[in-house]
């Protein structure tokens, strides 16, 4: 971006700050300025035009500045653009495209407008490919597809961020480009995120677009748009992109602050009337396309497990499902604390093979029965043989689904573990040993290429889940041999 004098000479228009109100500045002059145009102040600060009135131009400040009345301002003639390209990999950038980390300055080879119209229906394609998250419960019960927009919702500190990090770990290992938009969070969290990517050696395929809570609200507001613009650049190259927007409730709060400062009429919960439009327009830019895909995982914070908040329901309405992280499950010690009964994936199932669909259905039906049995037990009822079996298997399934943060399990390994559980391989194993034994199978799958191939072939050749269960019952060696060696 050029300096004040350059734009003054080229655009030949000037304005003067008439008044300022936190991050909103009212300017006189600039007769030809248009909405969303970027303006430069003589102090070097940047702003974006949000409204034009007969007497004033209303500008949203994008930098931390305290402008004096009378400060000169010039047009740039351009809407906001950010640098895009491979040189951003491994970097933490600000929503303005500048280096946020301590690395060298970013020299933009190409730029791209941050606010564009969502692609039309003709360039879109049906969501057809499965997107593996590496999180057992999600992959089996609430599967996701490439190009899906899935809301990740839950109270504070219920493991939402851990889940998206697990997804990034899995997807980065498959070569997916992962972009993480940190919207108005603590600086320390941004640093930790960057370190997480470095430590797990996935920084080369990740980009962090970050704004901290101390940044001006204009900058926080821009964060998801910048991240989406970068994602679109790679999508246009035919690549698959995973975009995390952490989180859109903070973004909505920030936009509410801006709107109230700009004296917009407040609506429900004091949010402005265009908040739905704003988020829908953003999320519509993601999806599966004939050329590349953008899988968007927006995060949303709920309060006391309440899913009926204004922004939360808005986001549910504009996404293809949601994964609900339940505070009660979290307090019970379940990790991830995903509530499978309140989570929805509208397009994920269609991306799975008939076999995986069958597995998912079997697990879902079982979970419903298991939950019903647990409710039944609350009445102190004596349970029969069948119910006891369901409860025993359910407890083992809980252990199977329990997965620590930062650990990812390939879907095929999950399937074989589940099959073994269904086949009764671990019926006599103590619960304390169960997780360890399952981990040894996963480790074998991840480290022993022959074993991996054997399992992959076995799962690939199975048509329905009961067939695989019966096969494991008949020949449990595929599991037992590995376990014996591990023991």
């Amino acid at each position, binding site marked *: 971006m050029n300096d004040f004098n350059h734009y*003054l*000479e080229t655009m*030949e*228009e*000037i*304005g003067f700050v008439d008044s300022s109100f936190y991050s909103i500045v009212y300017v*006189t*002059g*600039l*007769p030809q300025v248009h909405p969303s145009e970027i303006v430069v102040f003589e102090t070097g600060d940047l702003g974006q035009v949000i409204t034009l009135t007969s007497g004033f131009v209303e500008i949203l400040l994008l930098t931390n500045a305290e402008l004096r009345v009378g400060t000169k301002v*010039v047009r740039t003639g351009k809407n906001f653009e950010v640098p895009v390209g491979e040189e951003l990999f491994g970097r933490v950038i600000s929503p303005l495209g500048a280096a946020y980390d301590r690395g060298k300055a970013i020299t933009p080879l190409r730029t791209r407008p941050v606010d564009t119209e969502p692609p039309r229906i003709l360039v879109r394609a049906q969501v057809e490919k499965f997107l593996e998250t590496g999180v057992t419960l999600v992959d089996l019960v609430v599967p996701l597809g490439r190009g899906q927009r899935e809301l990740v919702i839950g109270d504070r500190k219920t493991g939402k961020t851990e889940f998206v990090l697990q997804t990034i770990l899995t997807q980065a290992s498959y070569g997916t480009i992962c972009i993480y938009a940190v919207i108005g969070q603590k600086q320390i969290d941004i640093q930790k995120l960057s370190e997480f990517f470095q430590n797990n050696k996935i920084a080369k395929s990740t980009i962090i677009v970050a704004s901290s809570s101390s940044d001006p609200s204009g900058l926080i507001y821009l964060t998801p748009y910048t991240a989406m613009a970068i994602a679109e650049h790679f999508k246009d190259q035919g690549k698959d992109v995973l975009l995390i927007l952490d989180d859109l409730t903070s973004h909505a709060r920030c936009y509410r602050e801006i709107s109230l400062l700009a004296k917009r009429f407040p609506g429900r919960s004091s949010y402005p009337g265009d908040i739905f439009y704003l988020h829908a327009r953003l999320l519509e830019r993601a999806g599966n396309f004939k050329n590349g895909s953008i899988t968007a995982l927006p995060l949303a914070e709920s309060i006391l497990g309440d899913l009926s908040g204004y922004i939360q329901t808005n986001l549910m309405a504009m996404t293809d499902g949601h994964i609900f992280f339940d505070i009660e499950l979290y307090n019970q010690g379940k990790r991830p604390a995903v509530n499978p009964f309140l989570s929805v994936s509208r397009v994920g199932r269609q991306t799975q093979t008939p076999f995986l669909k069958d597995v998912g259905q079997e697990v879902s039906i079982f979970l419903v029965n298991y939950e019903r049995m647990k409710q039944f037990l609350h009445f102190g009822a004596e349970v029969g043989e069948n119910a006891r079996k369901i409860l025993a298997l359910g407890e083992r399934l809980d252990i199977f689904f329990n997965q620590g943060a930062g650990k990812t399990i390939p879907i095929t390994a999950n399937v074989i573990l589940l099959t073994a559980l269904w086949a009764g391989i671990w019926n006599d194993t103590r619960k304390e040993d169960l997780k360890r034994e399952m981990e040894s199978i996963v480790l074998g799958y991840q480290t022993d290429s022959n074993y991996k191939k054997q399992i992959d072939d076995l799962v690939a050749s199975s048509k329905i889940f009961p067939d695989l269960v019966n096969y494991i019952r008949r020949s449990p060696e595929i599991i037992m041999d590995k376990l014996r060696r591990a023991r």
Partner: protein
Amino acid sequence: MYEVFIDRIKTNEDKERLLEEIEVLLTGIYEDKGYALDSLLQTGVRSWVSSYIREEFSKSGVNRESFLRGLEKELRGLKDVYLTIAFEPTQDQIDTMASFLKQEIGSSIILNLSYDPQIIGGVQIIYEGLFRDFSFNRIFEKEFEEDREEILKKLAQNE
């Protein structure tokens, strides 16, 4: 009604001074049954301001406060023409510039002059958000842009 004042003031400084005088007069309107205003017209404002205002007040049916408020509003509504020049102008030069601009643009303008020797000569104008640079600095820059390398080469040879 206010043309005499508008024609008389040329620069932003003139405007500010007149506004201050109006403010002083407004404070005296209701003091001491109006006698304070008479006293202020004698001592608190410049003589030409005093004589014009006395003349207006002498007309029948003139509300003193409305007149002064109206004048204040009129002055605040004047549009600034910002001129940046490379020298400090004399009063004659200011008068010439003001009368030229009032003739070209209209009487409801006021000069906002600033002095910047870096522009070397010519003028930079800002009016209604439009900026035009007719400074020597820019003209020279433009000239040098094309022949910069050649000039630098010649200078180096001379050294």
